[in-house]
């Protein structure tokens, strides 16, 4: 199996049993790797009777056939599990080095099941796998653990949880290589519930590439396109993802003060330009990435990677905060506590509105950056108000009797794009299988950046077609697994040809998109099996009913109800959002159909 390692590692923490078995070839062809392979394994492993924080839930770490080949951004990996935040299927992926190193250890997937009796960490050196006592690591923060376990970017890579994961915060992340994160949906809590502190990998193997000559050509052509595109060659390297701040704000799609407005008057102060001018120390790259969007920043108090655009928005515009140093420090603290910055910032924004409206007895107010350190610590350790806030905005808002003030879908906090100013983005959030997410496809390219071409962001009719394509494409890219930023300059046809060169199996562009569609349908079926229905494909009431008060999106609400039926039809689902048998047969999902 060129490209794939051909092997799955399976560790049961309850019994201590470690085993390996071959990767099923049909499964590999149908779901490729990463998110797709993780979803397919989870479908068999974790049914609706399983509590996400019980030993019966599993963590599935996956890489793909391109991982560690040296293809641009082939460093990423994915984790799949049942989310303790949403109850849906969850996958989160991350860059850095860990994924590349895990692939070089000779595996396509690692399944972690059960629960250790006391804290442990796992060490994988090629085919040597050991489970160590982690009593001395439990309670430590991410940076300290990462350093103690010997992080060395190209040789030995550490993945760990922080206090948030240990304390079962439902917005806890899993961190890798120090400051990278598998952030959304609470995978850190699943790891914490297993008493698993860290996984360290070292690998010496190289993936086999079937057609070296063709692969080198695709590498060359991909490099050319990434260099030719101003987003990947100038905007992202110079300003990182925060370059989006001013662009999204300018079109009136930046949710502000818990989405009460869609433009932030302080956007300039927390923009990519401001970050570069005042706090940037240097750029950095993930393994095999020519884009280099990573920012190393420094304030008087902290130095570290980030923040990304979404984080700057969550602690910035969402909370009405224009203090960039405070945002950088909140990001660094979240990374060290092992907590999702988007959910953390959005939950604080929700708390600020609950407090301002008198629904919660607190002095919290929009614009208060000084509250971040204590609130974040309390959320990670589940103390005081943090005992509720540490489980995200929906549980917080519900606790105080106003769930409508949680800006979330299926319980996952919405990122930095207001669906009232980007109609396609609203449909995308509502139908995302892991809750509101900008990484399950993103209309940013089409509705704001003009990538590949600009479409009308207020257009309603026909939007479903774009959303379906981009969701399928994102699922395919997540299954390869590579970075979606490459897709800003390089079309899917290049990925399909590269996959063909690596594996020796002919994949057309349409085949790759079809794989993404298969993954999307499998995730949908998983959620339906968990009890999710059409009623869950919705947005916070504010976005459906409260028109934007001013700015370029003034007067607009999300027209989700008009788009949803068209979306279901475009997907070949029935009026309740259930995939039709004919569609699943077309997608050759016969093994899943048996269970359905």
């Amino acid at each position, binding site marked *: 199996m060129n490209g794939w390692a051909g092997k799955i590692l399976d560790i049961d923490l309850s019994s201590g049993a470690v085993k390996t078995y071959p990767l099923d070839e049909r499964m590999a062809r149908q779901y490729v790797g990463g998110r797709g392979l993780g979803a397919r394994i989870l479908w068999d492993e974790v049914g609706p009777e399983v509590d996400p924080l019980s030993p019966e839930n599993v963590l599935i770490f996956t890489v793909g056939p391109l991982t560690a080949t040296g293809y641009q951004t082939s460093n990423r990996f994915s984790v799949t599990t049942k989310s303790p935040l949403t109850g849906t299927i969850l996958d989160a992926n991350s860059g850095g080095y860990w994924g590349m190193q895990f692939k070089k250890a000779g595996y396509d997937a690692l399944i972690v099941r059960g629960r250790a009796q006391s804290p442990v960490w796992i060490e994988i050196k090629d085919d040597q796998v050991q489970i160590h006592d982690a009593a001395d690591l439990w309670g430590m923060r991410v940076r300290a653990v990462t350093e103690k376990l010997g992080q060395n970017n190209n040789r030995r890579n550490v993945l760990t949880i922080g206090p948030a994961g240990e304390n079962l915060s439902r917005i806890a992340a899993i961190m890798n290589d120090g400051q990278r994160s598998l952030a959304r949906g609470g995978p850190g809590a699943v790891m914490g519930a297993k008493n698993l502190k860290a996984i360290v990998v070292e690998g010496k193997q190289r993936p086999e590439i079937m057609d070296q000559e063709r692969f080198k*050509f695709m590498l060359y052509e991909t490099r050319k396109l990434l260099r030719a595109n101003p987003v990947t060659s100038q905007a992202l390297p110079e300003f990182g993802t925060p370059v989006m701040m001013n662009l999204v704000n300018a079109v009136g799609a930046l949710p502000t003060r818990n989405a009460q407005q869609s433009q932030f008057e302080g956007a300039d102060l927390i923009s990519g330009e401001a970050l570069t001018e005042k706090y940037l120390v240097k750029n950095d790259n993930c393994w095999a990435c020519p884009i280099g969007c990573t920012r190393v920043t420094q304030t008087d108090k902290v130095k570290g990677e980030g923040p990304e655009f979404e984080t700057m928005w969550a602690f910035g515009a969402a909370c009405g905060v224009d203090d960039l140093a405070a945002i950088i420090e909140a990001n660094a603290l979240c990374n060290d506590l092992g907590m999702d910055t988007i959910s953390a910032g959005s939950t604080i924004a929700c708390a600020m509105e609950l407090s301002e409206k008198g629904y919660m007895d607190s002095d919290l107010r929009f614009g208060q950056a000084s509250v971040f350190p204590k609130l974040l610590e309390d959320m990670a350790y589940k103390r005081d108000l943090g005992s509720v806030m540490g489980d995200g905005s929906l549980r917080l808002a519900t606790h105080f009797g106003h769930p409508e003030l949680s800006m979330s879908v299926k319980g996952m906090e919405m990122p930095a794009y207001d669906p009232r100013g980007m109609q396609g983005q609203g449909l995308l959030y509502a139908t995302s299988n892991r809750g509101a997410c900008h990484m399950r496809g993103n209309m940013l390219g089409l509705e704001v950046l003009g990538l590949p071409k600009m479409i009308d962001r207020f257009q309603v009719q026909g939007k479903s077609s774009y959303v379906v394509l981009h969701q399928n494409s994102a699922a395919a890219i997540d299954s390869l697994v590579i970075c979606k930023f490459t897709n800003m300059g390089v079309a899917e046809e290049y990925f399909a040809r590269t996959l063909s060169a690596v594996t020796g199996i002919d994949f*057309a*562009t349409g085949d790759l998109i079809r794989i993404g569609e298969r993954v999307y349908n499998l995730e949908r079926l998983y959620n339906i099996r968990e009890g999710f229905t059409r009623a869950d494909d919705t947005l916070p009431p504010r976005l459906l009913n409260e028109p934007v008060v001013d700015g370029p999106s003034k007067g607009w609400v999300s027209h989700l109800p008009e788009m949803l039926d068209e979306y279901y039809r*475009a997907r070949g689902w029935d009026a309740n959002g259930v995939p039709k048998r004919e569609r699943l047969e077309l997608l050759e999902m016969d093994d899943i159909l048996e269970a359905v």
Partner: protein
Amino acid sequence: MIDQRIYEQIRDIGRDLYLQNMISSHGGNISVRIGDKLVIKRRGAQLGRLKPHDLVETYIEKNDSGVALASTELLAHRTIYMKTPALAIIHCHPRTAIALSLSRDEIVPIDNEASYLLKKVPVVAEEFASGTIEMANTVADALRQYKIIMLRGHGSFAIGQTLEEAFHWSSTLEEACQIAVWAKIINEPFIEYRKMSDAYNKF
């Protein structure tokens, strides 16, 4: 009811195709995908002068009354939507590209723009090159691997996420073919300026 925004997109691209000599007065056809339906030019309508009533909405995978009005190449458009991820299709008659398609099985551009964007455009052939299921399948199968292809002696089919994207591929191909013809006319030795260009014909 077809949204005004969608009508305007189709009207503008149709006008551009005509003004750039990519079609004759009544030639070519374009469509966009909307959910499980497509919107396509009415049969006999002039692409360069489309009115709202010149657009027909019909299903991709089943017939309705719309098929009585739709373009001759509806079958090809439907088949392309079923076999590829296309959200928009342009079929036009770029003259230089058609001329080159008569003598070769693939068009490999020599100019920089098309080398970046297209690499290679295959030429496919069908005995009955209009409105048949054989032609529809041949064209759609080729578009599984390429975003623009030539049907020998007939014209180009381009796919994209938007009509603008498909138009980009179509106009780039015609420009590349005109440059190739001019280079041939000038008849001076070609100086290769691209690395790995020998791999383009394997793309």
